[in-house]
């Protein structure tokens, strides 16, 4: 017997690692391409004012995508994100308008309410073993139904909000909207939690190989419920910010946003099979989506083109991930090896 040649070795080794490493760069390249194309088509695209506008649009999406990333990393979905945002915003606004002395607690209240809704999602997925797509499709309706029932076709107007929240969306710090800075803070905090907390690493481990996670003694249900609770809490907070930006809100706030959020996450390179990607990629995905929106509006293109391009971007991103995933999985396959000829 002799040693296999270098070429043979290469064929035997998993080639998914390199692909994982360049995935983020691919999104970045796509964003640069978008900027170049839009600028070429309409020179007004490039400039500080328009960049600010894109980042402002991306801010809400990037924060919601940060929460969604936690769930998608485990190989699951949270389709109820828009309903959680709407429910939390409406309930918190309504309560504060009736009890102004609670105004100082709006943020913790929204986060806690969102976390409770996320907990319900997590329990459905773990203990009742309902596939996450179905469980959160159900709660998408349930939560929206609850807020409609609660709102009883009424609106909460911005006049009833505490003063600081009414103006928050228009405040600028260092030349950028406060929302952009808050989004940066949220994304970085989630990013740090993912890389520095043991829980964050376990999310990746669970999404990468659930069977191995069992052998390693990881508490699968606990980790997953944690992901849903955190995602719900973030959604509650983002809902509050979105409500403050919109002003007069009704029970339909943020309905349908889950598609945008998921689009940002998968375009940003978080694998829909779980285990890889980052919250920074998801934020970049949000910027890509905002850029597409903004550029097409500047070009005076109709809405359905935007949907078309957004849809193609999602499919292309997941197609790339599917190729990467196939290669990555060679590392978990049964070991079969050929005896090298003498």
């Amino acid at each position, binding site marked *: 017997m002799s040693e296999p040649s270098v070429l043979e070795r290469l064929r035997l080794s998993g080639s*998914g690692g390199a692909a994982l490493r360049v995935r983020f760069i691919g999104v970045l390249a796509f964003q640069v391409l978008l900027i170049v194309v839009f600028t070429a088509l309409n020179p007004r695209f490039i400039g500080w004012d328009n960049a600010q506008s894109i980042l402002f649009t991306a801010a809400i999406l990037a924060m919601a995508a940060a929460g969604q990333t936690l769930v998608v990393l485990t190989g699951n979905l949270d389709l109820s994100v828009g309903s959680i945002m709407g429910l939390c915003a409406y309930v918190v606004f309504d309560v504060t308008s009736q009890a102004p002395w609670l105004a100082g607690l709006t943020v913790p209240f929204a986060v806690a309410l969102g976390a409770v809704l996320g907990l319900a999602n997590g329990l459905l997925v773990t203990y009742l073993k309902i596939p996450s797509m179905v469980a959160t499709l159900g709660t998408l309706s349930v939560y929206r139904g609850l807020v409609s029932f609660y709102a009883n076709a009424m609106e909460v107007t911005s006049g009833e909000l505490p003063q600081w929240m009414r103006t928050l969306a228009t405040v600028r710090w260092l030349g950028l909207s406060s929302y952009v800075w808050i989004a940066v803070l949220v994304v970085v905090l989630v990013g740090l939690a993912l890389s520095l*907390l043991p829980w964050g*690493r376990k999310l990746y*481990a669970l999404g990468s190989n659930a069977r191995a996670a069992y052998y390693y003694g990881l508490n699968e249900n606990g980790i997953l419920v944690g992901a849903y609770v955190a995602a719900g809490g973030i959604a509650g907070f983002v809902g509050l910010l979105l409500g403050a930006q919109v002003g007069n809100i009704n029970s339909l706030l943020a309905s349908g946003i889950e598609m945008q959020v998921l689009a940002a996450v998968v375009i940003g390179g978080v694998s829909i099979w779980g285990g890889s990607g980052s919250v920074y990629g998801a934020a970049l995905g949000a910027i890509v989506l905002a850029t597409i929106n903004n550029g097409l509006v500047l070009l005076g293109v109709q809405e359905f083109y935007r949907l078309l391009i957004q849809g193609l971007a999602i499919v292309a991103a997941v197609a790339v991930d599917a190729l990467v995933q196939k290669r990555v999985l060679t*590392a978990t396959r*049964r070991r079969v090896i*050929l*005896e090298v000829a003498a």
Partner: protein
Amino acid sequence: MTAEVTASAGVPRLSVQGISKSFEAIHALRDVSFDLAPGEIHALVGENGAGKSTLVGVITGLLQADHGHVLLNGTDVRFHNPLEARTKGVAAVFQDPNLFPHLSIAENIVTGAYPRKGPLLDLAAMRGLARTKLEQLGFDLDPDRLVAELTVAEAQFVEIARAVEPGLQLLILDEPTSALTPSEAGRLYTMVEALKAAGTTVVWISHRMDEIRRLADTITVLRDGQHVVTAPASELGDDDMIKAMVGRSVALQRVPRTEELGPVRLRVRDLNLAGTFADISFDVAEGEIVAIAGLVGSGRSEIQQAVFGLSPEVTGTIEVDGEAVRPDSPAVMARKGVVYLPEDRDAEGIISSMSITANIALPSIRSLSKAGFMAPRKERALAAGQREALSIKGEISALVSSLSGGNRQKVALARWLATNPRVLLLDEPTHGIDVGTKVQVHDMMRRLARQQRMAILMVSSDLPEVLAVSDRVLVIRRGRLAATIDIEDATQENIMAAATAGRVEEGTK
């Protein structure tokens, strides 16, 4: 090596006492008892299905025994999961890799026991820990590399590095060298000997005589879920070991073939699949049953799957009735009259939530439909005919999930037979089936070959079955055709010897 283990004199490191474990009607382990001494290398051998993996599962807490005890250093232990076993110093490296491919080597090694600085991960300590472990074991790997970019051997080193901890009492390695080159295996031998010197007991599951001879202090043989012998390696020769492995008690009768073989139906030449098998050439004639024997993981099932078009990247030539065909997909092969019955019939062979009729009609839908619509009467007639021919128990409207294993297998077979195939590929056709049904399946195979003139290529781990039904035996060892044995000369011993590269004296029967 940091593993320093204290041993009290006379007490076995691990004592397996009267362990039994059944999966439904199958007895995977029956009253197995033996001892492992402290600081020895203990080879655990046996055929496929002898119960080795089940035993490892029971010891490490992956499975719960129905009866019996496991004593670690004289204390009764019953682990509920592999992690609990690890905390008591019992670790196993399984044949199937259990790693996180998207994560780095360092993370894979520390997952579950992260080094912390307050509530945060200590990334530097994590890397340092991983590097130290890898260096101690003599593995030269960068802890920052992702597991997805490792070779199978490197991935296995990562698993071993993860398993080895200070105070390790028992390390179980399940066919650890099956994916290693000779020099990599050599490094593993050195590592295992160092562990032994430090007092760790190592269970080495292997089929390779050379390494068992080189490493093992003691050898235990399992057969059909039962303990056969535990003896010092010096007292158990290769012949005795192979005899102990293969001496199955089941009596299956050969039925000599009176019909002549016809022309070659399936011709395979120079079949190659990178990293899995190479230079595979053979013929199967009309009316002939050819068995592929070999160990699990030798590539034998993969050869059959490649012939059925499940590995489009395979190279080489395949001819069916003299006509060349590229095995690009199962659809292509099925059109040529080649059909395949997978080993895991519940997952791949049948659709258990559908009726017997629907299952049998599935591959024949085109010929059963009229102007694009299904013709239920024709479907039922086809199913009733097959049910009769194969003596399937159960109404044709019954769901397949309500049938026994043997009858499910018959349904899986019936659905292909309804298409009048020319070449039949069977992977472990009677795996998990009771002896009575097994004999029926064998009769059916003989009839299909001899009367209906099909060419049958069967993969089987069941040596009595191989001897009872086949006309010729191809033995695969590590992806290569190690021997072709005519049925007149075949014995369980010489097949096993060819599969494991052990030496058996001529004339051993």
